[in-house]
């Protein structure tokens, strides 16, 4: 296996240019959403709005204003599949369409996927969706094709501010630590890494954030769907056992009641005969 590879996205230097979104669409030949008809979100300068089957990179704009609209802050974050070390989508996929590659990334093989959509509801980050063009679930592949040829993924290649950095995970982790240290020294003490080993065994696409995860639309404690498998299956099995037992006991009781009634009738008849 090759070395685990991934993205480190430093949101403090993202300028929201969306070059990554465009580079991703170009390289992966993803069509414009809605056939290229431009629709506006109406409540934000962000008109991409979300990741889906045709949008594998999405620069989130977090536009914060106070009541008087005097104070404002813009946070920008280029969102993408997190290529989780413990991946919920890979866990639930029934067809084996979702695989882990030699680079420790998670890829959906669109020739295998049959569109059951289990992965969509399993992803803790809402990354995956169906691409209406081919009807299969799609998401970022971390440019698996480019990586196999030794190239940098299109988004990281296009990023003008190096907000998106690509490389071996161990190297990126060290770089991220140094950057957090540097920001703390400069007075930005809120800076921290989202996606270390405490989250799903580590996110191979991790982030430097300066506010709570929820502010960026990220869950603070994402979990694997399989956390529920054993309890849910056991409770159902217990229910089945209880219903089976209920059936057994009620049918036995019915038989016993009938035998008792028959005996009573027989006894009465016998009594009647002896009288005669």
């Amino acid at each position, binding site marked *: 296996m090759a070395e685990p590879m991934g993205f480190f996205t430093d949101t403090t230097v993202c300028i929201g240019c969306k070059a990554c979104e465009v580079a991703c669409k170009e390289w992966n030949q993803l069509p414009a959403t809605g056939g290229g008809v431009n629709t506006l979100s109406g409540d934000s300068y962000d008109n991409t709005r979300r990741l889906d089957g045709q949008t594998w990179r999405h620069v989130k704009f977090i536009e914060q204003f106070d009541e008087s609209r005097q104070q404002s802050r813009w946070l920008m974050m280029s969102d993408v599949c997190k290529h989780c070390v413990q991946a919920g989508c890979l866990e639930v996929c*029934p*067809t084996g369409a979702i695989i882990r590659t030699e680079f420790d990334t998670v890829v959906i093989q669109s020739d295998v996927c*049959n*569109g*059951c959509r289990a992965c969509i509801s399993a992803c803790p980050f809402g990354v995956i969706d169906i691409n209406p063009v081919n*009807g299969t679930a799609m998401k970022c592949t971390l440019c698996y094709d480019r990586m196999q040829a030794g190239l940098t993924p299109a988004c990281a290649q296009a990023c003008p501010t190096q907000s998106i950095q690509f490389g071996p995970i161990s190297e990126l982790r060290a770089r991220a630590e140094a950057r957090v240290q540097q920001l703390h020294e400069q007075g930005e003490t809120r800076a921290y890494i989202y996606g270390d080993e405490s989250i799903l065994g580590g996110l191979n696409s991790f982030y430097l954030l300066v506010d709570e995860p929820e502010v960026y639309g990220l869950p603070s404690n994402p979990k694997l769907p399989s956390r529920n498998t054993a309890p849910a299956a056991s409770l159902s099995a217990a229910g089945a056992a209880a*219903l089976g037992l209920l*059936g057994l006991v009620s049918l036995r009781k019915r038989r016993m009641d009938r035998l008792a009634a028959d005996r009573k009738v027989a006894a009465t008849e016998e009594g009647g005969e002896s009288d005669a």
Partner: protein
Amino acid sequence: MPDTFFTEAPHWQWWIIWYFFIGGIGGGSYAIAALLHIFGEPEDRPIVRLGYYIALPSIIVSGILLTLDLTRPERFYHMLVQSKTFVPAFKYWSPMSVGSWGITLFGLFAFLSTVGALAETGRLPWSGLSRLNQGTLGLVINLAGGLCGFFVAGYTGVLLSVTNRPLWSDTPLLGLLFLLSAFSTAAALLLLVGRRRAQPESLEWLSQIDSWALILELVVLGAVILSVGTVVAREVLFNAWGVLLLVGVVLAGILVPLLLHWRPRLLGAASPLGAAALVLLGGFILRVVMLLSSEAV
């Protein structure tokens, strides 16, 4: 905000709602038939056979509904075999994979028992096939098929819980809830369809276990609401879906049928029919609310 609110809806909607309802009835009908086959009396046979007759078409329709729900229906067989090598594909930790195999196996047992029942009543020229429902072979088929029936009835709820979606993955109780509801709707359909051909003792027993299943279902439904926590309940169910759950499921689908089972003369001769119809309606609405309320978030 709970972590489950950062996820995307899979758009499991009407095909799946109908599948959950019909598949549940199929699994429940076979389970009831198997219980009567193993522990019942000879006069229960009409209901046993009816259980098989409901199970087989139900599971066939279920397979069609599930295939239609795929965005690439022509690849339905990827659920069972690997697409290139045709080697069986089975992931015991993926509810969807286990479910696909469970439905397939259940279909096999429902088919065998149906053939046996048809032979038993002389509707097939080969009377020897009635052995499928007799002796040790019949016992084995009914045991295995009954277990598969319970599985089909309950795994759908487990599948919903093994996601990261609001409501579904916030409780481990949906599998149990769907299992109980499948059992009660199956008993109701057997009562409804079997009322002319079955013995009163069989119908009496069906009505009894239907009541028990409804009581358990009510308790588990309460536990589901408590277990998801106030934030999830407020966001997902404090709206029209919650009202539908209360009126359509709790009141019309559980409490009124229980009252009619308890006081069968309340609506005269129509009481058993009304109760059964309401249980079926409630079971359907339960699935509508459980799926669409979470999909709407």
